[in-house]
């Protein structure tokens, strides 16, 4: 008997991935009155399990083990597949982060289940999941459905669904589960992790300030960074700026970079090529700052300032500090 919804809740060093709560919120909606189960894999993840209950899980399956301390494909996929086989949920969800995409795809392959990746809308039609996904560089939306029997898998694009607020009055059951693979059965070993420190991840960011060719050089990103810092946001970049070597690839937004959906996206000195638009067009409010009033970015923007970014950005930073600081 298939029933309920299972959500794989991602965490890094005991800190939950915010987009996992969005998946949990969607699980509650899709489950109707049915049970919502969260699965948390890691080491020292008790607090994440408790938060999953406050965010809407009725039950949390916790695998707390040294072999799961760092994300690795084989142990995570083997464990999720085993949990799905054992509990037979009707639906399996996760945030479409890098690990979320890998773990659900791997487990779906093992089970022979249908998977819809990186969806921005999700519903049940006659008991089958139906999803909307941006395709072809975000230029059109594709409507896709699960047709196969058994558990139905989907990963949800971060920030495309609302996250439920934690409710301290909720209670639920925490169940310990054992890992499937022992350390010597795992082919990959994590040797190091160079964490991104002091900066906000583009995927999680509610505000992103991006620079393009118009910043003119590596130093040109200083005013971009200052505004991002004043706003508590992340720094993005266009392909032109990354290819010129002005800023590392991790910051690239667009077709061959990251796809982001912040509340506010400020594009400074970015003309707005179609490939860049593929990465940021789902932002709630887009602000364009460009010298060229004909730049395509103005067609996408809600607000525009025609002017020199080296004057406008510092003025914005000063204004933000004055009002919000």
């Amino acid at each position, binding site marked *: 008997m298939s029933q309920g919804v299972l959500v794989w809740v991602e965490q890094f060093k005991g800190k939950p991935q915010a987009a996992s709560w969005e998946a949990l919120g969607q699980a509650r909606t899709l489950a109707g009155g049915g049970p919502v189960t969260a699965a948390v894999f890691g080491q020292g993840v008790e607090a994440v399990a408790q938060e999953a209950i406050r965010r809407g899980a009725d039950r949390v399956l916790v695998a707390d083990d040294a072999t799961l301390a760092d994300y690795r*494909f084989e142990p995570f996929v083997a464990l999720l597949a085993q949990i799905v086989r054992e509990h037979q949920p009707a639906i399996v969800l996760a945030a479409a982060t890098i690990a979320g995409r890998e773990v659900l795809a791997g487990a*779906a392959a093992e089970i022979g289940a249908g998977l819809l990746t990186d969806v921005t809308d999700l519903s049940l039609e006659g008991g089958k999941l139906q999803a909307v996904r941006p*395709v072809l560089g975000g230029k059109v939306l594709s409507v896709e459905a699960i047709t196969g029997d058994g558990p139905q898998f989907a990963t949800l694009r971060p920030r495309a669904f609302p996250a439920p607020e934690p409710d301290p009055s909720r209670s639920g059951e925490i169940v310990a589960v054992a890992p499937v693979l022992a350390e010597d059965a795992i082919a990959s070993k*994590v040797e190091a992790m160079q964490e991104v420190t002091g900066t906000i991840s583009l995927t999680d960011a509610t505000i992103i300030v991006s620079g393009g060719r118009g910043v003119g050089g590596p130093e040109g990103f200083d005013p971009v960074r200052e505004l991002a810092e004043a706003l508590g946001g992340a720094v993005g970049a266009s392909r032109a700026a990354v290819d010129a070597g002005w800023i590392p690839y991790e910051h690239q937004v667009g077709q061959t970079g990251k796809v982001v959906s912040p509340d506010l996206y400020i594009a400074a000195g970015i003309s707005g090529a179609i490939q860049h638009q593929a990465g940021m067009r789902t932002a709630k409010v887009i602000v364009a700052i460009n010298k060229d009033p004909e730049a395509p970015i103005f067609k996408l923007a809600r607000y*525009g300032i025609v002017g020199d970014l080296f004057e406008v950005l510092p003025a914005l930073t000063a204004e933000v500090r004055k009002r919000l600081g």
Partner: protein
Amino acid sequence: MHVVVVTKNTPDTAATVTVKGDGTIDWGDSLVVNPWDEYAITEAVLLKEAHSGKATVLTVGTDEHQEALKHGLAIGCDQAIRVWDGALDGCDSLGYAEAVAAAIRKLGDVDLVIFGRELADIATDQHVYQVARKLGWTMLGYVAKIQALDVAARSITVNRLTEYGTQTVRSTLPAVISVVKDINEPKYPTFIGIRKAAKAEIPVWSAADLGLDAAALQPRTQQLRYQELPKREGTVEIIEGATAQEKAAKLIDRLIEEKVL
């Protein structure tokens, strides 16, 4: 050492896409090598050169994907293989992964399989991880650098870009990796390479050649229709002002009204 790169043609990223009344799309029919695969193919050629090995470029698809294979040959892959069969028509990522995994098993001596991060047309990467699972090999996704590859010691060490930072992972071979654009500067075909590729005979392997079972190719998902993007409300409001300070103050007012600050 034998490295296999898996590729496909996808619609030109610069193409204008329109949704027709019946929910199908029109994109001008201009195909290019999937943009991410240019890095994957280049990496396969660089590795085979560095390790005196062999590089195979593989596709699962109709003859419209022939160009992606020829691109692979033109920049230095030693052989190209196309897998196609009517039984694969309409298969989803699971069937596709089944076919890729079967072709890799048939090749027999493969040490490393390389994919581009995702397919630009259907905007997904799930097939990559599903190939790894079907082969039972390690998956190292989002690789920005191969730090070390020791074929004799059956070991590979890579840097993976994740949301949380750069993870350095060592794994045994064989393995499946997917690469991001930081990994290299894509090679472009030379005139001699293009001529050589044009003359190459590319074998086509059928479902029967690979021993593929029809049940395993059965799709579990279906593409129903396409939709236009929701129109963005209104047009741009250009913030005017005598000075940058004045423009900045007005813009911040608007952003506070919009509740994004």
